[in-house]
């Protein structure tokens, strides 16, 4: 509904991704300099100027499937590799964390504070790289420019757009379950106590006014919650006390983070329907992906530096098991774009283009000769 949602979605999900990767790199005892290089590479790709330009253009949100493809590419922007199962788990953690943060934001505008919390932490990861720091500050400036003057109504629309994106996702995350912010049925706990949002009064008061607009009577009623007044407003400047804790790093090296795949939602009918039926949005999504990733400058893997594989699970066997037992309805059906160098990919594409003209048209496409559908078919074959 709001065409200003994508930057917020992308940056916050990206922030969560970095939190998880940072935790796993430490848990897996990856040497400090390698770990720093991975995070630096990913962050500098994320905040690349051309990419940010595309991101900030007013546009609709695309599907989880399309967005997942961008993160796939981002996660492989360095010498680190992730198997499909680990990438699935990473994306689950990212999406559930941001869903939680959006849901619990006191005011719709506070999603901007959550974004700033993520950016503040990201700056912590790259303290020794002034170039990348400058890129992040530049993004900060852009956020302030675009979102600084949006009305409460526009923020409410952004919030609704984000919630529609996260609708029906109920993956259980062990940290959330342990901290009792998520119930065993996958739904988040919405507390009815604590401070009210900044600008809201503690519920329970009825004020009566006369013709002249003067307050003549004040009575109370039992609201049912246990709220208190808000202490102070979070800072929207480049530096400042954000007050809000949502969006700060909740992972530490010692807390393993598991997700539970079973019994997520009883209402699978609508979800499976989405995945099985041919997706008519695919063409628009591919154009979006092409634009967005065209702006991503993936670093060429430097010769002597060996790559390594990061595992989001505690053992390789666990990772393998997760890959085999992932329920059908939660499969992201990723458009598998390998992180090869662009030159190589273009040659491969050209070769397949040549092959494509001879082979049969795929059955799914409704408009068989449009460019987007050809691209879709080709990508499935890569």
């Amino acid at each position, binding site marked *: *509904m*709001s*065409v*200003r949602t994508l930057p917020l979605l992308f940056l916050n999900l990206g922030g969560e991704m970095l939190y998880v990767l940072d935790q796993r790199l430490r848990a897996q005892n990856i040497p400090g300099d390698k770990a720093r290089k991975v995070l630096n590479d990913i962050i500098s790709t994320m905040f690349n100027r051309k990419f940010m330009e595309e991101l900030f253009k*007013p546009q*609709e949100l695309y599907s989880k499937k399309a967005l997942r493809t961008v993160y796939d590419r981002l996660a492989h922007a360095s010498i680190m590799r992730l198997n499909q199962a680990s990438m699935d788990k990473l994306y689950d953690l990212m999406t559930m964390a941001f869903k939680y943060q959006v*849901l619990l934001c*006191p005011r*719709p505008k506070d999603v901007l504070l959550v974004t700033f919390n993520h950016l503040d932490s990201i700056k912590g990861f790259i303290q020794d790289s002034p170039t990348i720091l400058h890129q992040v500050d530049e993004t900060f400036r852009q956020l302030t420019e675009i979102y600084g003057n949006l*009305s*409460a*109504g*526009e923020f*409410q*629309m952004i*919030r*609704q757009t984000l*919630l*529609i994106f996260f*609708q*029906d996702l*109920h993956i259980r995350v062990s940290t959330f379950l342990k901290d009792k912010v998520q*119930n065993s049925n996958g*739904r*988040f*706990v*919405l507390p*009815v106590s604590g401070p*009210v*949002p900044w*600008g*809201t*009064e*503690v*519920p*329970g*008061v*009825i*004020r*009566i*006014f*006369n*013709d002249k*607009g003067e307050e003549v009577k004040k009575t109370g*009623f*039992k*609201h*049912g*919650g246990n709220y208190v007044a808000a202490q102070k407003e979070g800072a929207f400047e480049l530096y400042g006390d954000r007050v809000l804790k949502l969006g700060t790093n909740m992972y530490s090296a010692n807390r393993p983070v598991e997700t539970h795949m079973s019994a997520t939602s*009883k*209402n699978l*009918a*609508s979800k499976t329907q989405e995945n099985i039926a041919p*997706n*008519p*949005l695919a*063409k*628009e999504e591919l154009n979006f992906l092409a634009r967005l990733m065209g702006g991503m400058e993936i670093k060429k893997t430097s010769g002597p530096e060996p790559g390594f594989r990061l595992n989001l699970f505690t053992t390789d066997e666990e990772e393998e098991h997760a890959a085999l037992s992932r329920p059908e309805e939660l499969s992201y059906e990723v458009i598998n774009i390998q992180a090869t160098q662009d030159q190589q990919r273009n040659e491969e594409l050209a070769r397949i283009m040549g092959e494509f003209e001879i082979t049969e048209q795929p059955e799914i496409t*409704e*408009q068989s000769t449009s460019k987007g559908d050809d691209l879709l078919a080709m990508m499935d074959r890569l």
Partner: protein
Amino acid sequence: MYRRERSIPLRGSAAALSNNLSVLQLPASDLMHFGVVHGPSAQILSSAPGGMPLAQRQLQVKVGVGVSPPLITQVHWCVLPFRVLLVLTSHRRIQMYESDGSLMVYWHALDSGDASSAQTLFARGIAASVHFICVGTWSGRILVFDIPAKGTNIVLNEELAGHQTPITDIATERAQGQDGVADMVTADDSGVLCVWRSGTVFTLLTRIPGFGVPCPSVQLWQGMVAAGYGNGQVRLYDATTGALHVQISAHARTICALDLAPEVGKLLSAAEDTFVHIWKLSRNPESGSIEVEHCHGECVSDTQLCGARFCDPSGCSFAVTGYDLAEILRFSSV
């Protein structure tokens, strides 16, 4: 006191929109009809008095081959003198159906006018006023459609200007003691309220300024405007003068829906803070000022509510929907 009744299951969960529940109960029949927006589809279902679901239908807005259906913003029944129509508002379009959703009788494509690229076109806010159906739009303009007693000859009669930000909700009430005249209140994203008198031409009677907070839901009863705001406040204004009579710190999060039981003057407020409250409105016979009393509060645990309606005109029962919830929760008084 109210107690939980049996829930009605939904095919798809409710979307995080405001006013995301419409209820139709026709006096002649025992059946109750419910309408809920899921996202790109809306679900219409009918149930027997006990809550047993009988028939259900899913509606979508089709805009072309190979293009995915746009998001629906609201679904609402409009009860007119000679017929009942089901209206669906979405991005880019307004669609009107026979009351059971079986047949589309009219559709209207939204005009982009002078929209910038940073604006999405959508319609939101639906109400019936005598033989008109009024629908709000993203620009703040309200479209007034003239509805014939039967058939598909629906015509866009007028476009009302009075708001500068997207319309959130519209409410109407037959003007007291006058046939063929109704009052209407429209609300928008900046909290501005406009009170209109309808007739062959709509006239703006009063304009109530906002205070920097959206007004997602509004109701009209016996010359009183009840408005629910983004900061959890419910305010009651006199519809003729626009004067503020009552201000309630009712909720800790934005209000998502208000509804009225006109026979008794009960007001229902539901918000994203998981609470539903019921209030009794009245007018002091001497001073004419509006008075309010809190009747009941209900907490729907861990559910960000998005729709709420009374199921009968005397407010003996009500229903609510919540974000991510695939059922309609029902309550009735003991």
